[in-house]
């Protein structure tokens, strides 16, 4: 074991960030990206609860990026890819990782996370992920930098 990473309480989010409908829409958007299906009511509730408690509030720059990801789904994975390199532990990525954790801790999606137990996995998903991930990063990093500059 090593020293723990705690779930520190943080200041309450701005009212609009805590709006239940908004949070439900966020949970759906992220879940569709990750699984292809919308979030269940329980998953939305868990996302809302976790976001309220442990996720950092969005600063102005992050809020603009987040807004874009929600309004324009085609930008979602590119901005995510850019932030994975530029701000991996920032408030946007925290929201994505919280939802990912919620989905992992659910029987419905278990097989998206567990390794194969019976036979060797085909490499296609890995290759698509690696190539796609690299490509999205190549677009996402300059995109995020440009968006940040435009926001100033």
């Amino acid at each position, binding site marked *: 074991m090593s020293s723990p990473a705690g779930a520190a309480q943080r200041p309450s989010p701005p009212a609009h960030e805590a709006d239940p409908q908004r949070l439900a829409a966020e949970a759906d958007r992220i879940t569709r990206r990750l699984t292809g299906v919308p979030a269940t009511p329980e998953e939305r509730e868990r996302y809302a609860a976790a976001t309220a408690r442990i996720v950092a509030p969005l600063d102005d720059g992050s809020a603009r990026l987040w807004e874009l990801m929600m309004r324009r789904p085609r930008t979602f994975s590119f901005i995510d890819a850019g932030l994975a390199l530029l701000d991996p532990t920032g408030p946007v990525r925290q929201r994505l990782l919280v939802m990912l954790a919620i989905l992992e801790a659910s029987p419905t999606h*278990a097989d998206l996370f567990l390794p194969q137990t019976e036979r060797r996995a085909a490499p296609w998903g890995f290759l698509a992920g690696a190539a796609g991930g690299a490509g999205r990063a190549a677009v996402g990093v300059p995109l995020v930098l440009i968006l940040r500059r435009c926001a100033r």
Partner: protein
Amino acid sequence: MTRDIIVVGSGAAGAIAAQTLAGAGRRVTVLDGGHRDTRYAPQIPDGDFTTIRRTDPRQHEYFLGADHEGYGVADTRVGSQLTPPRAFLVRDVERFLPLRSDTFRPLESLAYGGLGGGWGLGCNVYADVELDRMGLDPATMLAAYRTVIDRIGVSGDPTDDAAPYSLGPITDVQPPVFLEPSMARILRAYRRRRAEFRARGIHLGRSALAMLTRPKDGRDPTHDEDMMFWSDRGLSAYRSWITMDDLRAREAIDHVPGVLVTGFEETEDGVRVDMIDLGDGETRSLHARRLVLACGVLGTARIVLRSLGREDERLPILCNPYTYVPCLQPARLGAAVPVHKTSASPLMLNEDPGGGFLDAGVASLFTYRSLLLFKLVKEAPLNVADARRVMQYLQSAFVIAGVHHPDSGHPSRTLGLEADSGSPTGDVLSVDWSPTDDEERANAARERRIGAALRRLGCVPLRYIRTPPGASIHYGGTLPFDRRGGRMTLSPEGRLAGTRDVFVADGSGLRYLPARGPTLTLMANAHRTAQHVASA
């Protein structure tokens, strides 16, 4: 009322000391913080990790935590093993055991069973030269090792190349745990080129683990359910609270939970022990004929400094540096991972170029599954969706090497108490611990040699992640063993110098810390010390 013997702490050392004292007919009172997991343990169903993941709709409660403590999304450090069901181990520590340091990041506990509740189960019988350097008598320690191994149950292979480092001369152990394909592949690679590895001082083999593979004393053998970080089903993994539960059930000890011992003072006929109630903050005292401090090196240091220390006095401190090395085993990419596997480290790679045990390093080898994939995705420089696909495929090929280095101490590495009126105890522990340049070079060289060996074993090191000092959770040397009886030392029997009736049974006396984990040695030393206390 004067009690017979008070033992402070119920962890690896305290539980064994209490057991030995009770077995010798002494009346023992154990004081501890007493925290337990009453929240998650009842929620976790029986079964293996994979089946639970596929079937339990309430798994998010214990995998992620009712207070979301299992997410860790804002922090890139890895403290993954402190899962929500294990979080009780550190409850109240920040408040009651405050620490100030620029570099040192230790783990302490006020739990029932102490840090033993999260022990990785690795058992190591140290060689005579190591024990001698540590200040321990090899002959009496060997007998103590045998006693403790018989009590707690240890599995391993006493015949393989790692046996001199894990079990020494001890052969009476249970068969080793199941070896999953990744680990079996590494072992086969080693055996094919055994002479070459041994010529380079590499000795690889089965870890000795405090994990049952046969039934013992009402405890079940492991079912290899890969749930070690979450539950203690069947009690196959040894936890110190198992000993405490047994002692309490037999009414062999009195147990006073919910207290933090702050100091002591010897009286005409014994020792007064002062404490704070963790609940209401009230102070109180108990009196005993003898006092045994076994609350861990840092906890004991606080108590001793408050009780006997001079102003601004500082004590030495040892701590093993720890680096973990995630590796990729290309032959296992996408491979099937059996449902049944152990979460503990089944293989150990000993790096001992001189062949003399002293200054040897060790890498404990693990695979990764039951600490959840999102923690790996978090570390990947990719968008979350693609990272999930990549990590899902790669996880069967991940091998983690946990590398520990020895520590002989250095005058610059000390701890002491500083006044702090905001602390419940009025003080804070200040720790200075940094490696010297020579140590950093030596440790880096050792890591390169271990990395080279891993590559020859088919595992490609990806990164060398040096954890902060203290993260190994192996500490020692604050009250070094010294026959001369100098200030702030322990006699070979564990008596605190300058006292009549105060003994120390944890790792405080150890003058040297081998790289291999000390927990079994702490227990053996505690047993040995308790024997002296019982007969003194």
